[in-house]
């Protein structure tokens, strides 16, 4: 089973993504989970290094490139170690040419596919679709990018946020860069206006991500409803409707379906005292059964047709019509009308079983 993927997204270096990743790793370790640091970017930040000390680290690969000794994540070592949770910094990183994958996010895909959970970090400026916007904002063309699909397919995208002022304060205090780089950093990439723009992009990205996930959550039940059952019981203010509603509830339980009860009042008809008592009793029963009690006024068949369409009902339960044969011939049968007007909807006539018992 694919592991759970959590991405910590920041507006710029120094907002605390790596620190947050290690904090989460330590918390998971304290809870008894098998956690390793798959790769930690050597930022030379003492606070971050201290946080990583308690955690097991998979040794980095040392590789020579362009006359430099560089650290890379040892993907095979992480896969062999097969931890429950791997902490992997900087998913947008470009691997050395001889590496199996071009990008670290591809390494992470392998680790996720092997079943390990991953917490990783990235800055918004590396997002492929924002490359031009970042260039306009910072006048820096970012070369290391990652596809938007990485964020889309992550299980969680969490914004690690800091105000531009707070980040600048951290930079001035030497918590992000060495002393000799502070001035240049604050005058260029880390200018307040640029940081504000980057922050806005990061916030918007996460907001859109949250929105798309919310929509998918909302849409899923809707699509499920398209094939789900929903039961509608037609009731009238008389004792036998208690039985119809109870029987409808049992059908709904078997189908795993929600239940509605509908009373359609004849136009201009005011319920008498006895009917009011029966209606109140039906409403109480509907509450107990977790059913929705609906009331409408007008022609019975037209009202039922409209409610069925609005509620997505798939079953309609109706009591045995007590209409006379003469009325049936003159005005037509209620059940026939329902069958005719509600194609694709099951119509069930609820008989009084007691009558069957005494009739035998």
């Amino acid at each position, binding site marked *: 089973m694919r592991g759970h993927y959590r991405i910590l997204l920041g507006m710029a270096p120094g907002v605390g993504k790596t620190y947050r990743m290690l904090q989460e790793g330590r918390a998971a370790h304290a809870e008894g989970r098998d956690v390793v640091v798959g790769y930690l970017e050597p930022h030379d930040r003492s606070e971050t290094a201290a946080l990583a000390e308690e955690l097991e680290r998979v040794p980095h690969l040392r590789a020579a490139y362009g006359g430099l000794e560089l650290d890379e994540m040892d993907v095979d070592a992480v896969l062999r170690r097969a931890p429950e949770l791997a902490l992997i910094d900087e998913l947008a990183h470009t691997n050395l040419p001889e590496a199996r994958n071009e990008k670290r996010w591809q390494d992470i895909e392998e680790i996720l596919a092997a079943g390990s959970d991953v917490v990783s970090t990235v800055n918004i400026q590396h997002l492929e679709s924002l490359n031009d916007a970042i260039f306009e904002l910072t006048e820096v063309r970012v070369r290391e990018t990652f596809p938007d699909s990485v964020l889309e397919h992550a299980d969680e995208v969490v914004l690690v946020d800091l105000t531009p002022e707070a980040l600048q304060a951290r930079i001035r205090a030497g918590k992000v860069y060495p002393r000799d780089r502070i001035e240049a950093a604050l005058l260029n990439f880390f200018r307040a206006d640029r940081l504000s723009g980057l922050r806005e992009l990061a916030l918007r990205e996460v907001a859109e991500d949250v929105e798309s996930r919310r929509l998918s959550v909302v849409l899923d039940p809707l699509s499920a409803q398209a094939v789900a059952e929903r039961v509608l019981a037609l009731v009238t203010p008389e004792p036998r409707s208690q039985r119809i509603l*109870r029987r409808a509830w*049992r059908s709904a*339980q078997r189908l795993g379906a929600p239940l509605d009860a509908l009373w359609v009042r004849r136009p201009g008809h005011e319920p008498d005292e006895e009917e009011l008592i029966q209606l109140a*009793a039906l409403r*109480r029963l509907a509450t*107990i059964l977790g059913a929705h009690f609906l009331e409408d006024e007008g022609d019975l068949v037209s009202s039922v047709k409209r409610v069925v369409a609005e509620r997505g009902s798939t079953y309609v339960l109706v009591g045995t019509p007590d209409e006379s044969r003469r009325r049936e011939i003159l005005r037509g049968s209620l059940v026939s009308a329902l069958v005719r007007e509600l194609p694709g909807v099951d119509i069930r006539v609820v008989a009084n*079983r007691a009558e069957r018992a*005494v009739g035998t």
Partner: protein
Amino acid sequence: MIGRRRRAVYQGEGRILVPFSGALDPTALRAALRIARAEEATLVPAYLLVVPLQYDEDSPRTDHVAVALPLLEAVELEAARRGVPVDARIEKGRSLTHALRRLWEVEAFDRIVASSSSFTAKELAWLLTNAPAETIVLRPASAVAASL
């Protein structure tokens, strides 16, 4: 084959409440049916459903409802055999007495037939003191009494 003669179901004038919870004592049911038949009244078997305080009062209690419904159907069948009209209820409350009070606050009854197997002595005392109609308390059937 000679079928049983079907008794005509009259239109009940009075209403006889038979409150119960969990199980219905057959003694109380038979007595209530005899009275209803004699007085041409409607039998109102009422399953009292207690909603504990930790739940919202409107929360559906499907476990209890699943017990109540077959019982009410059984009562309806028995009443139909005897030609007695039925108007069944399920009423909920924070306690049995709360559910009972709610029921007779909105509906009128001419008699109440209760079994001592459904209520505690304290509840029965409350019932006899507060019931808005003539109340008959019956001892449980011997089989039920033996199991108590």
